[in-house]
């Protein structure tokens, strides 16, 4: 089969600048939306899953319905755990057991005014001891020092620091370190934690004793232990034997995987919202493309009179549609990489970091292909159905 030259398709793209701008704009919007939705869904899922460390076990309250934030366990649990289980990781005589208190609290910079509308900017605050860094290897103290108990000091994750406009430079002079208000109580920031891609990046960490005082609690949320030889089942047996402590043992990666499932409706909502907006934009683009091709029905008939087969004409229309859509889609994908990659997005548990990876880019290219192919569908059908003499006489052009 003999095809039309490619320059026929490429030249036709610029035939009407207004239509080109509308079609390119519509396709750019659709593709950007699809890449954004894809990146959000994937980052939310991966961010939650990456928060769990293989080999870690969590002890939470038996009646907490597997929610760390609802969990309440005895503050002595980590000591019992370390003493009862053989095979917990240790270094220099210190066990990798981290007592933690997880509380969502309103948080803002002390030197900034409270929101006028009483909006509560909740951040997950984690009461911790230095052992938290041992059981959460994703977290690294990037700058500063650990907070000292009883001195109202705190660490903030990098994403939270950026939101609070706290930079590394602000921590160079400890006497001028910025303060944050946790539920109206001032804490000086002593360091920034880097934990890219996991929820810790959006958290504030304070000494667990200080947070217990602040929240007027006597119980902690969770004890996290890194196992080295012991099995999760050993910890489960411990939890079962110590029925007085009312504990449940959970494999940490499994816990975060189930948490990711909890957010599945949110992911579906993101996907459906993107799909609805994309469909709207797609219909607009379709209309522009259809009008562009319909106005050329005589020319399409002329090409068939010259001897080009209907298949050759259809291939040219598809080429043209794909190239037209690509004028918006490809810059849109590049823009998405530039603007979205590494962008922190807040959600109830903290922050997840968007990553425009190969799968997201592939979804953008798929959207481009679908748009291009669907865009050429109506004129293709018209081309296949209209007989040449009628098309030559058509009023459309």
């Amino acid at each position, binding site marked *: 089969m003999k095809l*039309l030259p490619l320059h026929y398709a490429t030249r036709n793209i610029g035939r009407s600048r207004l239509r080109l701008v509308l079609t390119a704009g519509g396709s750019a919007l659709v593709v950007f939306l699809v890449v954004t939705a894809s990146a959000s869904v994937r980052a939310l899922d991966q961010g939650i899953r990456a928060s769990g460390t293989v080999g870690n076990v969590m002890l939470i309250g038996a009646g907490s319905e597997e929610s760390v934030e609802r969990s309440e366990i005895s503050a002595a649990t980590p000591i019992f755990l370390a003493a009862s289980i053989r095979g917990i990781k240790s270094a220099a005589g210190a066990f990798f057991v981290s007592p933690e208190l997880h509380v969502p609290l309103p948080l803002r910079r002390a030197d900034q005014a409270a929101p006028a509308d009483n909006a509560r900017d909740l951040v997950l605050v984690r009461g911790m001891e230095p052992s938290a860094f041992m059981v959460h290897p994703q977290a690294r103290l990037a700058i500063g020092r650990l907070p000292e108990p009883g001195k109202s000091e705190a660490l903030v994750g990098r994403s939270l620091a950026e939101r609070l406009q706290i930079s590394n430079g602000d921590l160079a002079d400890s006497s001028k370190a910025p303060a944050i208000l946790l539920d109206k109580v001032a804490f000086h920031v002593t360091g920034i934690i880097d934990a890219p891609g996991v929820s810790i990046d959006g958290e504030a960490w304070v000494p667990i004793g200080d947070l217990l005082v602040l929240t007027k609690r006597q119980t902690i949320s969770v004890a996290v232990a890194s196992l080295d030889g012991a099995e999760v089942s050993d910890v489960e047996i411990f939890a079962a034997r110590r029925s007085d402590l009312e504990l449940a043992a959970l494999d940490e990666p499994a816990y975060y995987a189930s948490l990711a499932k909890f957010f599945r409706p949110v992911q579906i909502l993101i996907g459906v919202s993107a799909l609805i907006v994309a469909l709207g934009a797609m219909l607009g683009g379709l209309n522009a493309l259809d009008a562009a091709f319909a106005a050329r029905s005589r020319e399409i008939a002329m090409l068939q009179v010259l001897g080009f087969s209907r*298949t050759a004409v259809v291939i040219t229309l598809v080429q043209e549609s794909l190239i037209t859509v690509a004028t918006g889609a490809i810059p849109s994908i590049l823009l998405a990489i530039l603007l979205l990659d590494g962008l922190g997005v807040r959600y109830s548990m903290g922050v997840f970091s968007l990553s425009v990876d190969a799968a997201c880019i592939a979804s953008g290219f798929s959207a481009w292909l679908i748009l291009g192919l669907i865009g050429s569908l109506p004129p293709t059908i018209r081309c296949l159905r209209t007989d040449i003499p009628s098309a030559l006489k058509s009023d459309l052009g």
Partner: protein
Amino acid sequence: MHNPDTIIACHNLEKHYERGGEIVHVLESIDLSLARGGFVALMGPSGSGKTTLLNLFAGIDRPTAGSLMVDGQDLTHLSRSQLAQWRAVSIGYVFQLYHLVPVLTAYENVELPLFLHDMSRSERHLRVSEALDAVGITDRHAHYPRQLSGGQEQRVAIARAIVTRPAILLADEPTGDLDRTAAASIMELLGRLHSEKGQTIVMVTHDPATATHAQRLVQLDKGRLVESSMVRS
């Protein structure tokens, strides 16, 4: 038996359309034989069926009944894609409204049908140059249709129709959209293509003055062949 001197032969050719539940008889019982190398004008009032007959000769429309041989090919038995392939080789078609592609230059418009043939770039260039030269528009080869006059556009359209060296040049009211001077110039060009290159031309026109350039007149009325006469040898 096919006569090599006959380029178009039709017998009992009919074309009916159904419109609003009624059968419209556009062509009825057309018996016609046209010689190779001839210049024929199809004449008749509006709605007489002359363009439909031209479209049947071009293989872009199908007869309802009858036989139709064009350049030794029975068109009634060819599929749509076979007709397209046949047209690419045998037919050059000139439209009343030129139908040039606005985003292509005169050169590129003329080159377009050559992409249907196995030709190198240099062969295409040679053919296009010859065609543009034959219609006297070489100096306008880089111009876009919007930069050309109506007469010049029709010359480019004629160049596009002859560039493949077709057996038959079919022209549907080729001067219908031109002023008198440009029309005369186009008819002079068609006459020259016929007399100098021996090009077979079948032209639809309703203008008696235009028809005088042809050798033979075929008169249609209400879908029937009413007269066929030689104007000049």
